[in-house]
Every structure is written in structure tokens, then in C-alpha cells.
């Protein structure tokens, strides 16, 4: 092999607890310096290939591996869940981790760290707590950690999925600058902006097989593959979700926030980081309306949802009704909330139980089979939620939070990691809930999501 080459030979991977392999008998070679875009439907095994090259399969991740996945050169991998990539308490040391591993002298490390942080637009300074960053900011921190290494091969799993379009564009430029002359393998669902920067597009089918592999032009000229966001394609029609699955079982609430400010505090014995997440937010969400909180990462979108849903105490201002004082069961009857990290939302050990759980607790009927069918998860009913792909986990978290038909539906980045067909299911659910009278509020960067009211936020303030 030559420096910067990546190669799969007869690569087969079956995760523990899954009957069929996610990827079977894959042969693929990526030449040094090539820029490759890896696309395919949710659950096709795209992340699996990156994990394979990183040497994690069969060692850190349990399952059955055969064939080989090899790379020659220094690897830089960006994971889908950026919080897991944090290795140091403060931003500067986190980014320095790669250069330290490369035995770089101290006087070279810090200029690189500063340059990497600047290139992803993180301007808080080296001593900012890594844990105090928002989801999108953590994604950028993880990327800075990869870029600072100047690896021979960059493996990036949805590097801009949690970013708004402006930040995405600048982060993409930084990636492309860093990848100059190096091998780049990017997994992304929204591929339009990447196509003009890559040499080759590899398309995986839902069964993990390579269905197309060639130049960008050949990819664009060929038949549109299933489960891929083709550039210029019309926004998929939302799935027709039966109203019986989403109709609120009690009257939906109007919730109003008046002049709400929230300071998020990350406290350790060695110091405290205060982040002004919201300043004077006045907003209301109403029945039969989809309200979106949009804006760059760190703008306070997730905090706004949590405050409205009674999950976070405002520092000042008021929220009416004051859901924060409601008992857990009463709150669950009224509100469904989908967290940004889907793994935080799981309470049980099977997908079916997960969807059933809240309804069972509240004595509300849930048609588990049909809900799983809508979200394309029916074949995983007995699987462990942790064994699903990132996109599948997000859909499950949504189903689990909303299957009991609450009147208020709060969703934190619901369409991240979805292919056109699963996007259509998620958006279909949201639209059906709204049409059935639910109060829907979400935080999103997705410009295709149909919304009625938008609060564009920046630095904790409605812009």
C-alpha cells in the first residue's frame, strides 16, 4: 500500500445482536490524495466503513468481522456524536491531543491548535470548557482536533450535519484546505455542496453493497440511487401519517415565554464556566402551528425548547403555563420532547419496548407496530436501541417520545442524519401532529422543513 491509501477486501461486518451483516463482502480501494464522498440511505453502513478503517470493529465495537480494512498513513476520524470525541476538559488541550500524539514540539503545538480552532470558527479561547459547548460547537471542536493533526487520511462522518448553512460553508472550506493533497473520505446526507469538491462518489445500498462508484459526473448522469439527497431534487413529500397515530389525547397547550433569560453554568471545583444561553426571549408556541427556532450553533435553540417544555428553570422572566412545576406523569401527558443526543432518550433494551414505554406508564394505547412501520424500524422491533445506526436512533428517539400522543411536541434537530425517505417519515409525523392540533416546536438547521413561525436566533437573542 502507498501512503494515504485506504483499502477494503471482502470486508464483512455483523454487529453483535444483529442477525444479518451490515456490510457484506465489500471491495473498495481509495487512492492516495483522492477525495471521496460516501453516500447511501440511513443504516446502509457508511459509518461502519469509517470505523473499519479506524480499526475499531471487532476490537472496541463487538461483532463479527471478516475480510480486511486497511489504511496506510496517519488517520483523522470525526465521529457522528461529537461529545464522545472530547478527550480534555478544556478546548485548547482537546485540540492539542493529536499533535501531542504526533510528538510535536511544544512551540509548534499551540500555533496549530489556535489555527485549527480559528478555522472552525470557535473563538472562545483555549481555556473554555469543552463540556460547555453546544452540540454544533462540539462538532466543530472535534473537527478542529482532527484538522490540527494534519492527517494523511481524513475520515469525516457527517461533519456539518449540526451546523447552519453559513457555518457549514466555512467549515467545509476549512476541511478542503486541510485536505489539500491528502486523502478525504466524507460521509454526508446533504451532498449538494460537496459534489464540486470531490473526485469520486461511492453509493451504498440499504444492504451495504456498492451500487455505484465513479466520478461526480458519472454519478450525476446515472440513475438517481435510492435514499440519497440528489442535488436539485425536489423536497420529498412528507409521508402520509395516519392521524390516529398522532392526534393529541388531550387539548394542546399554548406556551408563552416572556423576557426569559437563561445562564448555563458548567461547574467544577477548579472553575466555573457561565454561558448566557438566552437573553430576554419572548416567544410563544401554539396549537396547530409548527414553530422553528433557527440560527447558528450555540445560539440558544435547544435551551429555548427546554425552557418552554418546563425542563429548565429560567434565570429570569416567565413561562406560562409553568410546566416546570408539573409532576412527571402530568408533564408526560402534555409534552413530548426529543433530545439532541438520541441515546439519552432510551429507557429500555428493545426498540419495541422503547416505543411502548411512556404510553404504558400513562395508561395510553400505543400502536407499536404501526409506529415502527412509519419510521422504517419494524425489522428492529426486538433489537437493542444502542445497536441501531445514528439516523435510526434519532427516529426511534422521536417515536419513543411521541407515540403516546402528547399535545405539545418539542424536537431538537429532528431531521439530522436522515435520507430522503426517512426524512419524509419524520416530517410526515411532524406535519400530521400539527394538522391534528398539536403544538409543535423544533430547533433545526434544515431549510426544507415546513414551518409556520420562525424565531431566528443569534447569541441567545431573537434576531
Amino acid at each position, binding site marked *: 500500500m502507498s501512503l494515504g491509501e485506504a483499502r477494503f477486501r471482502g470486508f464483512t461486518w455483523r454487529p453483535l445482536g444483529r442477525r444479518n451483516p451490515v456490510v457484506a463482502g465489500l471491495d473498495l480501494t481509495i487512492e492516495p490524495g483522492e477525495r471521496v464522498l460516501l453516500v447511501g440511505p440511513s443504516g446502509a453502513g457508511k459509518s461502519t466503513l469509517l470505523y473499519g478503517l479506524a*480499526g475499531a470493529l471487532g476490537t472496541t465495537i463487538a461483532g463479527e468481522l471478516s475480510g480486511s480494512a486497511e489504511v496506510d498513513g496517519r488517520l483523522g476520524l470525526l465521529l457522528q456524536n461529537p461529545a464522545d470525541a472530547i*478527550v480534555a476538559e478544556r478546548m485548547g488541550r482537546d485540540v492539542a491531543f493529536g499533535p*501531542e500524539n504526533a510528538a*510535536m*514540539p511544544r512551540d509548534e503545538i499551540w500555533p496549530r491548535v489556535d489555527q485549527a480552532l480559528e478555522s472552525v470558527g470557535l473563538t472562545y479561547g483555549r481555556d473554555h470548557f469543552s463540556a460547555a459547548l453546544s452540540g454544533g460547537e462540539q462538532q466543530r471542536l472535534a473537527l478542529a482536533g482532527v484538522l490540527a493533526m494534519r492527517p494523511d487520511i481524513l475520515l469525516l462522518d457527517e461533519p456539518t450535519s449540526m451546523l447552519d448553512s453559513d457555518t457549514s460553508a466555512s467549515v467545509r472550506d476549512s476541511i478542503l484546505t486541510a485536505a489539500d493533497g491528502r486523502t478525504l473520505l466524507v460521509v454526508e446526507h446533504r451532498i449538494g455542496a460537496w459534489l464540486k469538491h470531490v473526485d469520486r462518489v461511492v453509493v451504498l445500498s440499504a444492504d451495504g453493497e456498492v451500487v455505484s462508484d465513479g466520478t461526480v459526473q458519472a454519478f450525476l448522469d446515472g440513475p438517481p440511487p435510492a435514499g440519497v439527497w440528489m442535488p436539485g431534487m425536489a423536497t420529498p413529500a412528507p409521508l402520509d401519517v395516519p392521524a390516529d397515530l398522532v392526534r393529541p389525547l388531550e387539548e394542546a397547550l399554548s406556551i408563552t415565554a416572556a423576557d426569559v433569560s437563561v445562564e448555563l453554568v458548567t461547574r467544577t471545583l477548579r*472553575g466555573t464556566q457561565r454561558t448566557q444561553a438566552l437573553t430576554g426571549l419572548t416567544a410563544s408556541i401554539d396549537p396547530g402551528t409548527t414553530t422553528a427556532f433557527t440560527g447558528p450553533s450555540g445560539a440558544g435553540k435547544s435551551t429555548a425548547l427546554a425552557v418552554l417544555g418546563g425542563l429548565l428553570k429560567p434565570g429570569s422572566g416567565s413561562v406560562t403555563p409553568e410546566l416546570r412545576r408539573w409532576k412527571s406523569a402530568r408533564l408526560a401527558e402534555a409534552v413530548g420532547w426529543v433530545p439532541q443526543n438520541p441515546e439519552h*432518550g432510551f*429507557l429500555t433494551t428493545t426498540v419495541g419496548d422503547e416505543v411502548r414505554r*411512556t404510553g404504558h406508564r400513562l395508561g395510553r394505547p400505543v400502536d407499536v407496530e404501526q409506529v415502527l412501520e412509519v419510521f422504517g424500524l419494524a425489522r428492529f422491533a426486538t433489537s437493542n436501541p444502542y445497536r441501531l445506526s445514528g439516523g435510526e436512533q434519532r427516529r426511534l428517539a422521536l417515536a419513543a417520545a411521541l407515540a403516546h400522543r402528547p399535545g405539545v411536541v418539542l424536537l431538537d434537530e429532528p431531521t439530522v442524519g436522515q435520507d430522503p425517505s426517512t426524512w419524509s417519515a419524520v416530517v410526515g409525523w411532524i406535519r400530521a401532529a400539527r394538522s391534528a392540533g398539536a403544538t409543535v416546536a423544533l430547533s433545526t438547521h434544515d431549510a426544507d422543513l415546513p414551518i409556520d413561525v420562525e424565531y431566528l436566533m443569534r447569541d441567545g437573542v431573537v434576531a
Partner: protein
Amino acid sequence: MRSVVLRINPLVQLSVGLFSLLGSFWIRSLPVALIALGAYAVAGLLLLPGWRYPLACLGFTAIAAVTIVYSTWRLGGHDVEEAFTAGLRIVVLAGPGSIMAGYVDPSRFADYLAQTLHLPARLIAAFAAALQKFTGFGLAWQQLERVRRVRGFGPSRNPLANGRYAANMSFALLVQALRGASATSIAMDARGFATAHDRTWAEPAPWTVLDRLALVGAAVLGCAPIVARLGGA
């Protein structure tokens, strides 16, 4: 003055615990135990930046101390003084170290372990990455708590149910920690850790005048029981 504990290097911070442990072996009578404990209490009141965390640590140490007091009293001929001496010895042995451990910055600790004590670099880097996870646990706990509350499984007023809730939350956090650890180890390897045999460190590990003075101070505190005993207490 109260920021001294945060400014000294992590090895000096932990030396307080080491000296207290060594000194505790000289505690054989109640007056010596009280003098040693008093010395640490005065130092704590003057130098610690807050009081809640040290009190929580002392609370946990007190649980161990109470069991020792009881068992010594029960098995040692119902000698109250002997029992209390044994209990206070445990507080002096474990208290200062457990309190100081909380003030250790994982990255700085790794810098000193690797550059001052020359321990194996990979082991230390992995250790520091694991230690810093504790900062993230607070946020993960908050998210898990929110999900449980909004799905109808939040805490209630029933103490029995609350016990179950706490157990569930702890287990969920354990699952998160284990899954996060796997993902972090992948991310670390993918940032060159797997092949980092000759690692460098982004920050130096200097010994300042304050560090040296604090080390002497820690040794003096550790010697309090010895001095008290030699002085006839």
C-alpha cells in the same frame, strides 16, 4: 489566599493526602488525633476555596469513621477513647486526600505524572482522558433526568420509588459512560493515540516557589501527629 489550593501543582495537591496518610499511623491517642485533625481543619478553613465539597467528602469519610468507632468499641473492650481515636485516625488518613483529589485538573495532573514522575505517556494520556469524562457526566445526568421526567419516569415523593429512580439513573449513566468510553477510545486512536509511542505534552510541568512551599506545608501538616506525640500529647 483561598486560591492557593487551585494554583499549586497536582502532585503537591495530592501530596497533602499522602502525608496525612503517613502521619495518621502515629495517631495512637485521642489528644494526638484531635491535634492532627485540628491542624488540618485550620488549614482547610484558611486555604480551601469553598466549604460544600469538603464537607461532603468529610461526610463520606465520617461513615467509615463511625463504623470503625463502633467496631473498635464493640471488639476492643468498650473503650470509648480507643474507639474515637481509631475513628479520628481514619478521618485524618482519608479526609485530606479525598478533598484534595477533587481539585486536581486532569490535564495538568497528566503533565506532571508524565514529565515530573516520568510515568508511561500512553497510560497517563488515557488516564487523563478518562478523568475529564467526569465533567461531562454532570451534563449527561441532566439530560437523562430531563428525558425521564418528560416521559413520566421522574422522581416522586415516594421514598421507595425515589430509591428505584436513583438506581435507574445511576445505571443509565453507567451505560452512557461505558458507551462513551468505547467511542472516546475510538476517537483517541483515530487522533494518533494508537501509535503514539513517543508523545510530547502541550504544557510544561514547572515547580514554582509556591509549589515547593506548599509541599513543605503538606509535610508539616503530616508531621503534626508525630510532633504532638513526641511533645507528650
